[in-house]
């Protein structure tokens, strides 16, 4: 079990941090993900759905 209260590592350790950790520390990547995902998957796809409703002719 992880014990946070007594760090097992030296905080100045030069070992590069994991990619996921770096991702979560980087607001710009998160910003990109957070905007792109709903804009494409919900809004744009949804707008396409409505635009592609066929015309009944009456």
């Amino acid at each position, binding site marked *: 079990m992880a014990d946070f209260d007594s760090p097992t590592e030296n*905080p*100045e*350790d030069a070992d590069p*941090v994991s990619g*996921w950790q770096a991702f979560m520390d980087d607001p710009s990547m998160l910003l990109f993900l957070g905007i792109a995902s709903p804009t494409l998957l919900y809004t744009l796809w949804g707008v396409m759905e409505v635009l592609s*409703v066929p015309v*009944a*002719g*009456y």
Partner: protein
Amino acid sequence: MSYTSMDPIPHRHWWRLPVGPDEKIWIAVAYAWCLVMLVWMVGWFFVGNQNQAGEAFKVTLDGFSNKSDQMIDQYQLKDASGNLMAEGETDVPVVQVPAGGNVYIAAHQFEWPIIPVLELGKTYVFHISSLDVDHGFSLLPIVLNLQLIPGYDYVLRFTPNKTGVYRITCNEYCGLGHHLMAGKLYVIDTAHGVVLDGKGGVKGGEIGGAI
């Protein structure tokens, strides 16, 4: 020095810290349930009897209104003495389209335009739309609710499974008279003598009275 959720993480490689057993169990159980819901919802689309995705068409308000009028002209019922059947202060026509036919519900402020009559167990193609603003089609007491959008013909096949007098209420706010939009629908079973009683009810119907 202990830290909390309000402090920067005092651990350089926090990503590597192991996840506790409780969290592992919970994530596995929780996501397993999530997948059950996903499979169930998709499965119901293929094998379930109730799916509202339906079909839709873009229509003009006039065009849809004409369809509805034509239907009323053609299929409004007549009573024993040959008079057109209608109910309520506003004379809402009672309309029976043959099984398999198209039933147009052209809702408008603040009225349901027809009282449909359906045969038990037969399938009808409902076209539900609005001639002005959004309305809500809510069929009681089974509480089947659909959104009506002006300019969109929402096409769904309905197969009633209980006879009697159903009610329709508008449940999307549509203006200051929203609460006036109460309507009605009959399901009869002619083959078994469950028919309109001519007094606003259905003889021997299963559904009726207060909702």
